[in-house]
């Protein structure tokens, strides 16, 4: 099997003196929808940031397409790998289409600021995220769910084969969470993109991921297809939660049912 396009070897990840992960190795299978899960502060966002070259590893290296990711110019790297950060700031008064068009920056130059390919990429990204009708609205007037789709469209317009998403569903209500995840699923299935997302909800991860990475205390505890690795022992080891696993009646993927502390008596 050939080397995957994105992988990190023996990564030591730290913020100043505080070490999050030691000698962590990770491979992102090509064409997968990889989801990283784990309890708060387990280092999952840190790992994603290192893969996205936002955090320089104190030791070890991240490789992208057979080269050290640091050997690419930052613009060249941005043509291969896109990142949706946990939080971004929409400039005051910017329109939806204008914000999405900023995703084209790595494909532009000082005197080539808007090509036909740019127009097409922005139109496609807005169509795929269902925001075409919102294109002349101001981003600061939109709801949280709409805004998240706009940011996603901006990263899509970048047209990178690999997309990294840092908690794309946080702060969204359940319907918008599912909407964003369905969208990710479509991107992965019909556009053949490799997606890596950090998610909080284990059940969402099981339902949408083709490859799951479970982390605790900066280490990878298990990785593989959700149905192959998620069981009561893993959930207890990773999250410290007693639970039962049943088949998701919709998809057949593992569904985590947390154990009740005590029998809940319901009275009619």
């Amino acid at each position, binding site marked *: 099997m050939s080397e995957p396009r994105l992988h990190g070897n023996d990564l030591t990840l730290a913020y100043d003196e505080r070490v999050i992960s030691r000698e962590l190795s990770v491979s992102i299978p090509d064409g997968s929808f990889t989801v990283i899960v784990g309890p708060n502060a387990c280092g999952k966002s840190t790992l994603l940031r290192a893969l996205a070259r936002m955090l320089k590893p104190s030791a070890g290296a991240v490789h992208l397409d057979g080269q050290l990711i640091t050997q690419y110019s930052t613009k060249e790297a941005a043509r291969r790998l896109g990142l949706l950060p946990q939080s971004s*700031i929409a*400039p005051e008064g910017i329109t939806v289409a204008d914000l999405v068009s900023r995703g084209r920056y790595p494909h532009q130059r000082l005197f080539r600021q808007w090509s036909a390919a740019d127009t097409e990429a922005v139109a496609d990204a807005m169509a795929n995220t269902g925001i075409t009708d919102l294109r002349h609205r101001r981003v600061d007037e939109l709801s949280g769910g709409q805004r998240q789709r706009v940011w996603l469209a901006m990263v899509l317009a970048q047209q990178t084969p690999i997309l990294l998403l840092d908690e794309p569903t946080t702060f969204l209500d359940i319907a918008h969470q599912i909407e964003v995840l369905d969208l990710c699923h479509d991107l992965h299935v019909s556009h053949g993109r490799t997606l890596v997302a950090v998610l909080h909800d284990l059940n969402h991860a099981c339902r949408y991921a083709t490859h799951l990475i479970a982390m605790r205390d900066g280490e990878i505890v298990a990785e593989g297809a959700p149905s192959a690795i998620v069981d009561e022992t893993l959930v207890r080891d990773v999250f410290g939660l007693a639970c039962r696993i049943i088949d998701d009646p919709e998809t057949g993927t593992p569904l985590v049912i947390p154990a009740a502390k005590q029998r809940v008596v319901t009275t009619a």
Partner: protein
Amino acid sequence: MTAPTTPAPADAGRATRRITVAPTDLSPTGYVLRGPGELSVRFDRRVVLMCGLLVALLIAVFLTSLAVGDFTISPGDVVRTLFGNPPDPLADFIVNGRRLPRVLVAFLVGGALGASGAVFQSLSRNPLGSPDVIGFTSGASAGAVFVILVTGGSMLQVAGGAVIGGLATAIAVYLLAYKRGVQGFRLILVGIAAGAMLTSAVHYMLMRAELIQAASAQIWLTGSLNTRAWDHVIAVGVGVALVTPMLAVLSRPMRLIEMGDEAATGLGVNAERTRLGMLLAATVLAAIAVAAAGPIAFIALSAPHLARRLTGASGAATGAAALMGAALLGVSDLVAQWVLPTPLPVGVVTVCIGGVYLVWLLAREGRRNHV
């Protein structure tokens, strides 16, 4: 059944060679200009229109400044004098020797302050960002006052003292605020602290000084365009000309940094290098302006806001802010010289205009945050 096809226009091949302007459909006023090869430049119709109006205003201020004074010259004579055909030698001396350099210094200093303020507001992501936030103006004042009090100082030495004081403060603040890159908020806090300390240093020096020297330092501290001549025009002009290309190249990535460092880096912007470059450019612009005319207050703060309000642009519009700064200082200098009963240093007028504006801005921001 065949789909109806649109016949290709006969000049389709040639169309790519011409310069064309077309809407981008990205915003209601967004357009793209295409030229030979792959050349394409995005612009906003409203920004271009408003910049045009500002240029018209600058021309009006320019001609008025040359015509009005103790010795009034008719607009026609002003234009003739400018084109080397003065009606008499006195008009030549007054227009080309006195009023022309003064109004040019006003435009260049105002433009430099406006652009500098736009960059600082963008980098600090704060509407109150200006060269003052990194303690620059206080540093420049301390340097200049030191030179005036200690050496007596020619104009050039005072300017040198201001530049050194300002740059040293800017570098110190940048290094003190540096922690895995520089965040806007930390930059502001460190800058305010440094500015406060330097302001007390200035007060201390003034208290200890001889009365006459203290008075001349005080005049410099107000900011004035009196007795500015061609050597000022050349010095400021060369500095502005050197920094402008850097601003032009860096302003596109700078606008992406407004979305946050991670978003910008993800899009291929080297955030730290861009920020350092823009800080350098904005600091040099502020240094030139302060060295030439003293610490003229509020232009750097208010010009970017007014420009943004006028153009409706999102984020910092450096060019429009520069034009607005030039117009503000040009008008303020006319007011300072001729409208008031006694001529005043222009810094007094900008403080009055800017103070009112600042109060309005703070009241408005306060309402928005608390409703």
